[in-house]
């Protein structure tokens, strides 16, 4: 079972993404506090991370950079989730693998996650 980690401070988003992904057979875990991010990654060892740009504290961009600069986590697919129009540029800047613009369709989310998970095989 592929593991997906959601890093977001919005409980609604966490809930909805969890429901959608779990219904499609993923092992989903979430974290809403930037201080617990790396602890959770270390413990859960996700295949893919859905990362909100607007995270309080160090913010999604910084978290992404740290993941990508860490040899152990570098291979985890990271997808930035944001309401910004220029999300593609932001994703590029911080070295993320992909992006997902809010508001997204259920099918869009599933297709995106599936696409990147398959790459990892």
């Amino acid at each position, binding site marked *: 079972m592929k593991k997906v980690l959601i890093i977001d401070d919005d409980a*609604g988003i966490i809930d909805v993404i969890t429901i959608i992904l779990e219904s499609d057979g993923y092992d989903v875990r979430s974290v809403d506090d930037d201080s617990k991010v790396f602890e959770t990654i270390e413990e859960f060892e996700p295949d893919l991370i859905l990362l909100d740009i607007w995270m309080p504290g160090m913010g999604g961009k910084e978290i992404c950079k740290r993941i990508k600069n860490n040899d152990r986590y570098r291979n985890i697919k990271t997808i930035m989730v944001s*309401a*910004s129009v220029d999300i593609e540029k932001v994703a590029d800047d911080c070295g993320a693998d992909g992006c997902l613009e809010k*508001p*997204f369709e259920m099918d869009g989310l599933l297709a995106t996650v599936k696409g990147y998970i398959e790459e990892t095989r």
Partner: protein
Amino acid sequence: MTKSLRSLYLTVINWINKVKFVISGERRNYVYSNIFPVLRNRRTDVFEQISAKVRDRGVIYAMGIGLVLLAFLAKIWLDPIFRQDETVFLLSFVAVVITSLSGGAKPGIFTTLLVAIGAIYMYFTTNTGKNFWEGAYLNQIRMFTFLFEGVFVSLLIGRLKESEERAVLKSKLLINSEKHLRNVLNSLYAFVGVMTINGILIECNNAMLDVAALDADDVLGKPLDKTYWWNFAPSSKKKLVKAIKKAALGNLVRYDAKMRIGKHKYIVVDLTIAPIRNDEGKIIYLIPSGVDVTQKMKVINDNKKLYSELDDEKRRLEHIVGNTPGVVWEVMGKPFRKNQELTYISDYIDIILGCKKEERINDKDFWLRIIHPEDRDRVIRESEIIYNSGEGGSSRYRWVTKKGKIIWVETRMVLIKDFRGTIVGTRGVTVDITDRISLEQRKDEFTSIASHELKTPLTTIKAFTQILEKKLEKTGDKELLGYIGKMNNYIGRLTKIIYDFLDFSKIQAGRLDLFREDCDMIDLTKEVVEDLQSTTETHKILLKADDTKAISFADRNRISQVLINLITNAIKYSPEADKIEVSARREGDEVIVWVKDYGVGIPKENQSKIFDRFYRVNQPKKIKIEGFGLGLYISWEIVQRHKGRIWFDSIEGEGSTFYFALPIKK
């Protein structure tokens, strides 16, 4: 004879006048000069002089002969009463004296010889009957004595007369030269006069008198400072008196003096007082002379005033420019090249950068050094582009102040062209836009936050709705699915409103960014039409498109947004129609896309406002209008940003056609 008498008279007059001269001394006499008319023609002068001379001589010799004859006749007449041989000599001697007095030595000697010959051959021979040489020895002595006396007296009188004539001639010449000098002086524009060393005016030319309409008698004989010209203000008088005293000591004095020429009328003269010395070097006269320099002074003063005003104006402008919150500058030559020359820079730069004028004045790299190192290459590149564009432009970058603070500046520049139209430099203004940049950043932040805050709950609602929809599809509860469908519809509308609102905020902040790429407008139109066709069941969207490509350098999403906006409007405003026509076609350098509906159309009076923000066409009640009325405003902005055009045709009750055109990539 009259001539001789006149000559005698003049001689006497001449002497009298000479005495008068010595006594009265100083003033020349007009009347005296006028007795001798100035001979206008030199030839006439010479001829008359010669003929007068010949005439005078003839008369004198004739007079001599006549007098001798008279003397002899008188002797003959006196003989019977008073017989003395000496009588003839006495009478003849009178004749000799008169002749020589009238004609000089030669006629006197001539008369003497005449008397001697007459006495020898006529008197002594015929009257006594004895030969002169045989006669009384006494007579011979008398004869020789007479000859000696006659010649001597003639020579003496002649010499005296000669010197007298010379004096008269000299006097005539003097008078003539004085006359000429006076004419010359009177023809001068300058004022000239003669003063005693005490400053008493004894002579002045007509120009000096005429300027104040004065007569010679009004001023001559008065101290110059007490004359009408200067007797008006103590300061002028004092200055003049001082100048006269200085000149009397042998100095040439010169100054601009104020001179009265009428009631409340004054002129300024360039006054010179020159001392005149005699042969012994003693100062005998002072010559005041002056030229009216009022006009010149006026021009000088006017110029001074003008220059001072100009200077004030320059200072004022410099003050304004220097205190304008922006750096005004001018650079000749290409920007950031070695031969460029900074020809002007307003002092505000020192305020902005916190530096001192002298620190930058000799620093050739100053202009480049103050730019933030990260921006330098870009600024040089952009400046070159602007310089070569031939139009001018603007650039934003950072400056580093002396204290190391980073400030954002915006430079707007225009190009300086010479008379041939060649670009020779740039001129511009650089303003501190740090606050504006920070505000823009805050605006960007706001847009991002608003985006996030609005879209996040929307995403949750939308996703939950979809989850519900999926679950209900499995259970097959049609009633609930119907509600979910309505929810989806409203979520769609809410999404559209949020997107419009965010786009509007971006346009307002001037931050509607375009992500442009090459895109085929015909393909794009086809895609959009296909997508929208799937969302509407009421209208058939008919596409007329070329098979050829029409590539524009455009933001695919934004142009899709425009097209979606136009097509959804067309559907919305033609509720009773069943079709929409769309066309995409290349025409010349443009690709023109149009969307035609057969709906309500736009009333003429509203047509001019159609692209205004928040504008919505007032429609019959049966059409329900949704949204903010921002769609066309945003579309207009997007097309403008692509350097394209957007317009429409509409007839109320028949429908509308909206067009937009984008330039084809060359």
